[in-house]
């Protein structure tokens, strides 16, 4: 779709805002509707729109496949790692209260944000990876 100038310009302007909106949904998830999963999907949508318009080659230059795979793994490790951290601090797996020994409520808050970040990174990574893998196959042929 690279030949349509209108699409190209609009997408170029839109993509940063889509990514920013994803971060908003991510961070605002504990006050209103939102959270890691939704944010990850929106983030991936930004990358996918970019790929559809500018082609797989430029997209892979911006987000190489290895980086996407690392995102998938790191998000998961962040999630499970938080669980291990709470265990090391003497609580149950994913009991965020122990993250802040002075103020358990603050600990819960921090824990949820870290966990949701892990979810967001993984979801964004997985959806991008699924799209890129299929798209790359097409490009190679």
């Amino acid at each position, binding site marked *: 779709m690279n030949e349509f100038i209108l699409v190209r310009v609009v997408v170029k302007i839109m993509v940063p805002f889509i990514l920013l909106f994803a971060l908003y949904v991510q961070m605002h998830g504990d006050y*209103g*509707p939102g959270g890691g*999963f939704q944010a990850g999907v929106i983030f991936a949508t930004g990358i996918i729109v970019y790929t559809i318009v500018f082609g797989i080659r430029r997209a892979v230059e911006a987000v190489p496949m290895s980086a996407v795979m690392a995102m998938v793994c790191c998000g998961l490790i962040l999630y499970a790692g938080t669980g291990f951290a709470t265990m090391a601090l003497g609580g149950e797996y994913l009991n965020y209260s122990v993250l802040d020994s002075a103020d358990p409520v603050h600990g819960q808050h921090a824990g949820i944000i870290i966990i949701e970040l892990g979810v967001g990174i993984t979801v964004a990574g*997985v959806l991008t990876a*699924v799209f890129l*893998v*299929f798209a790359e*196959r097409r490009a190679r042929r």
Partner: protein
Amino acid sequence: MNPVDFVIGHALQWGSVALLMIGLYIVMTRGNLIKKVAGLNIFQGGVFLFYISLSNVRDGTAPIVHEDAVLYTNPLPHVLILTAIVVAVATTSLALALIVRIRESYSSIEEDEMAKADLD
């Protein structure tokens, strides 16, 4: 309960049963792998609808804490089904990935043609 209420009062459940049956029928009768995946998605869609129908509370509002609200719909089935939707996404993408590989090695995605190719 009179029969009319039984049908109309359970509209969502009837819908989900219909989707389950349609999906299962497509999965069982179609030989085309893509159609099978589509059938599987319809089948899972029936379950999603069923779970969402569970959460409905008459006159309940969206489950976000608010001082005016008295009655909330049950948010738990939504959360459960979000998980199931994620699973469905993963299943579908894995199924499509398998179809791509099947198509590369058999140059067909029709059940009967593949069976013939394996016999040769």
